[in-house]
């Protein structure tokens, strides 16, 4: 007879305690211990997302002067699968892809370790025609590129 009502839960708790201990004793750095950034993914607009990612807002918001390249189609026939690529000549540590008019703006966030090219390509869903933003963090500062993608068939509804 198992006295634990939910052994899985117990195991999860134990695992969490171990990870917490490792983090607090410096065995793993906070960056490695970083969990899914719930706050950033719940951001409704670019300012909220940028703030959650540690960037500035208003006049301190992301810089448009940097050389960030956003590859996305002009027109996406199917909003459920929109290919988006981000590349930059900057020394990027982080890359984020945002779809302005989606229910939650942030679609994906990438960390780029040293030795990895500042490049990523993936596919995102778009509910409707919207601006797509590529955010790149290089040397502690955020840079941005924006492109409008027209969607003829949305990818978020039922």
């Amino acid at each position, binding site marked *: 007879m198992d006295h634990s009502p939910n052994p899985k839960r117990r195991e999860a708790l134990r695992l969490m305690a171990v990870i917490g201990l490792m983090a607090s004793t410096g065995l793993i750095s906070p960056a490695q211990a970083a969990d899914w950034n719930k706050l950033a*993914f719940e951001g409704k607009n670019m300012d909220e997302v940028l703030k959650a990612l540690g960037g500035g807002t208003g006049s301190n918001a992301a810089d448009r002067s940097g050389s960030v390249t956003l590859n996305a189609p002009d027109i996406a026939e199917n909003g459920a699968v929109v290919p988006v690529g981000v590349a930059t000549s900057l020394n990027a540590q982080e890359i984020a892809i945002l779809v302005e008019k989606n229910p939650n703006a942030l679609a994906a966030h990438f*960390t780029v370790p040293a030795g990895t090219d500042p490049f*990523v390509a*993936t596919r*995102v869903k778009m509910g409707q025609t919207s601006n797509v933003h590529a955010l790149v963090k290089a040397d502690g500062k955020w840079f941005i590129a924006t492109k409008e993608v027209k969607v003829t068939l949305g990818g978020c*509804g039922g």
Partner: protein
Amino acid sequence: MGDPMRIRATESGGVVDVKVLMKHDMESGQRKDAAGKTIPAWHINMVTAKVKDKDVFNAQFGPAVSKDPFLNFKFKGAAKGDKIVVKWTDNKGDTRTDEATIS
């Protein structure tokens, strides 16, 4: 445990080009079922890629990443024959790990 990923890693001129196709529904949490009830979000949220135990790429996905997510990235510092290990975790705690040999 989900279905296997398809991973292709090719080295050329010192740069390894990695393409990963994950198998996941990536339920957005916006859709409703026939009874009008919202289908809860169920999506991959973390992806890590390692070579020789060193991180070469990390991704966090929201529900707005397309079904069966595709990921392409490039890194330096590995040779043909090295193994790349890709692992994803979804928001229900399910994980899947697959590896491929760099060619």
